[in-house]
């Protein structure tokens, strides 16, 4: 099984320009992120702090904010799309 991760411009300096990555055999969003951390040096420090996501980092599974789901424990399935984005104030 495979999950696609969309990577925003702010992280592409540590992903060598990759805007998308596939992660295999992940059960949860936390597993997906761990998969990325292994692949890309320096990524973890950018978006995570003390084992949790930094407060201006939003993560979505198929468009739904994981804070409405089970956070990093949110289950992922084959073909799901995980999106990482900085929080932006709107209006």
């Amino acid at each position, binding site marked *: 099984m495979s999950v696609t991760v969309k990577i925003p411009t702010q992280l592409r300096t540590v992903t060598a320009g990759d805007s998308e990555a596939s992660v295999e055999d992940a059960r949860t969003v936390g597993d997906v992120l761990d998969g990325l951390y292994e692949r890309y040096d320096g990524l973890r420090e950018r978006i995570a702090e003390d084992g949790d996501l930094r407060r201006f980092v939003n993560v979505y599974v198929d468009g739904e904010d994981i804070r*409405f789901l089970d956070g990093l424990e949110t289950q992922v399935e084959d073909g799901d799309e995980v999106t990482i984005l900085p929080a932006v104030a709107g209006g």
Partner: protein
Amino acid sequence: MSVEALKCKECGTRYPLDARYACEACWGPLEVAYDFSSLDRESARRRIQAGPNSLWRYADFLPFESPPRTALPAGMTPLVRAYRLADRLGLREVWVKNDAANPTHSFKDRVVSVALPKARELGYGVLACASTGNLANAVAAHAAANGLESYVFVPSDLEEQKILATGVYGTNLISVRGSYDDVNRLCTQLADERDWAFVNVNLRPYYAEGSKTLAFEIAEQLGFEQPDRVVVPIASGSLFTKIARGLDEWRSVGLLEGDAPVFNGAQAEGCSPVAQAYGAGLDVCRPVKPTGIAKSLAIGNPADGPYALDLARRSGGSIDAVSDDEIREGIRLLAETTGIFTETAGGTTTAVLKKLADRGDIDAGERVVLVITGEGLKTLDAVRGTFEAHEIDPTVDSFSDAFASAQPV
């Protein structure tokens, strides 16, 4: 010139003044940094008072080398002493800053006024935004007036008046099946894909600076004095914090004296993540799914929430939420006592002022400013059914029957 760099509000990392909004190191939001040390107070005040009758009179405090030329001047809206509202609430001195008196009838004309020339300066030909309605109106209108193409993204359940008052300017209007937070996420993704100036995404640090001008005007209109308290609506929390920032800057250069005002934030119960976090003593907001009539405040995931919470606590204020019925009553209260018809966001703010007054939070001698950010004609449904209209035949008898109790003696 005083504008220096973009600076991360969290870790202080500095970036050049280009189109970016998040710190690459810690993902904190970026803000424009200035150095006002060479700004002389007296000459700054003279430039303001001799300046144009628009927000460009405050150009010294905006992120440009020199005041840009724009085609739809915003700002310098009335600050009205609200004697009858104050009486009704048992307060001494209440002022209403009526920002509905802007070109597209909301405070969003301020932020777009600053974002648009910055977009042009950075070489963009297309202006875009994610909006709960008022920003949509402003982006479409300012883009039209200045000859830029525009793309405006709104949630599909928006009030019809706001849709119509956007489409009329000839923009590309995109109605998204989802909430504002979905629209915001989509636009954040699109900002990575398209070479467009999304005013409240990649141009957000500049855009947000426009909100400071509301504070500058209030202070100038009070004779270069600060109010004791301001009551401000909170959606993302950006306006709330930028009003404080504007006053901070003016105190730092000596244009104002004394302590910062007390800051009270207003939210609707249908979408109150910041008020909930305030009540629970938290310093971050848990996102919510918005409901209720105050659609212009319906941001369930407010990015400036942590800063709004800090400001309310630091200034001795609070963040309160009111129900839809209280919002309708707030709209009526403001209309009946000041002649100002505001939209649901203004009803929310007025209702919170009433709540603070009823609770005894406001001292007798305080000078309070109520910030009204938008126009009642854009949310007409909110007042439908809140009063009775009398239909009569065109005869004196018919009128007399209907108004028997009002018969002159």
